[in-house]
């Protein structure tokens, strides 16, 4: 590989000085590095600043109190386009923000062991109209929806039966908590993860 102007010249002994430095810092100097005068010069440079550098980096740095809250209040103030679900009810249509509805379904799914719901999109079933038809006072009847999910599952989970639980939770929870008629639930398993509990059990 061609050497750029920013690359480091090698030591006379052929070693890369930054590697020698890293080995000194990690306590993994090899026999050559321990004996070679060129490498030893790098090691002594490392040692000359080791103590103040460690003390500098050990100094605690705490973010100001309430910084996270200040960030989040600005985040929440940002305007984002909203998509709505309009649901019929005897006393007039209910407008439900689609992200909030998806959040409710995710919270339900968070209770399923070994599962992490990622993307959750609520879509109209084709040919049954629009979900946010509020201009006309909302749909006169419930619009059937598809819930499209991506999920991560814990290693060792039975995927078909987990997918069944997911579907059951979404269909029943959607009807009970949101008044949705969930016609189909598309589940895409996009990742697997190791549960803390499973890791802990294996260590025993």
């Amino acid at each position, binding site marked *: 590989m061609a050497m750029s102007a920013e690359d480091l010249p090698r030591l006379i002994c052929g070693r*890369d000085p930054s590697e020698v430095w890293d080995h000194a810092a990690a306590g993994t100097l090899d026999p050559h590095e321990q004996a070679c005068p060129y490498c030893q010069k790098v090691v002594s440079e490392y040692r*000359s600043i080791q103590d103040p550098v460690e003390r500098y980096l050990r100094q605690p740095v705490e973010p100001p109190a309430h910084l996270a809250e200040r960030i989040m209040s600005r*985040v929440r103030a940002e305007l984002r386009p909203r998509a709505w679900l309009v649901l019929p009810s005897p006393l007039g249509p209910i407008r*439900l923000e689609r992200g909030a509805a998806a*959040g409710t379904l995710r919270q339900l799914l968070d209770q399923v062991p070994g599962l992490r719901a990622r993307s959750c999109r609520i879509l109209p079933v084709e040919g049954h109209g629009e979900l946010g038809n509020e201009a006309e006072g909302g749909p006169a009847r419930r619009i059937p929806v598809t819930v499209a999910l991506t999920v991560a599952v814990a290693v060792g989970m039975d995927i078909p039966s987990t997918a069944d639980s997911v579907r059951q939770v979404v269909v029943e929870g959607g009807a009970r908590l949101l008044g949705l008629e969930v016609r189909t639930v598309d589940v895409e398993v996009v990742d697997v993860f190791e549960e803390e509990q499973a890791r802990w059990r294996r260590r025993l």
Partner: protein
Amino acid sequence: MVGTQAGPDRHAWIEWAEASAGVQSLGPISDPYRLDDDTLVVRAQEGDTAAYGELVVRYQPAMYRLALRLLDDPGEAEDATQESFLSAWRRLRGYRGEAAFSSWMYRIVTNRCLNMVRSRRPATSLDGAAEEVAGPEARGPERGVEANEQLGALRLALARLPPDQRACWLLREGEGLSYSEIAAIVGGSPAAVRGRIHRARRRLAEVMQPWR
């Protein structure tokens, strides 16, 4: 508007979810702390501010620490951290997960801080306060005083490094990142990053020589 508060109370809700999931007990109520970054990022991309809030809580200590060490000014570091998280929120839909969320945040914070450093007028630069570091010959007799002065000398030496060298050095020594991670954050090849960091180390060793 119907929000997430609708429906049965949380306890009944969990019992119902347990029954739906066909399990005996779900154990402790799950919370966002157990969720991995990828899950939180996807949720945040779909507008879930609580998920983004958890990412902010998770990463603000590291981002503030880097900003403070790069800028050496608590007020500026706070601004840089806040603006970086806001900018990340606005750009989150475009984040495709090529790099870890933490690396993506480090990149946003590093770029913002380097722009702030470069836009400072020379007269108000952070090393303007002290023209020269007093050498050890000028130190007091106590070891504590010497140690503090040595630390002060190191901070000044760091402040005088070229900003890109300082950023690479801090990402390596302060944040413990690999050369390739740093290269992805600051741009350039891992070999070039190695070069910058080693030059920074040598420069610090040179400046600190009177203290040996």
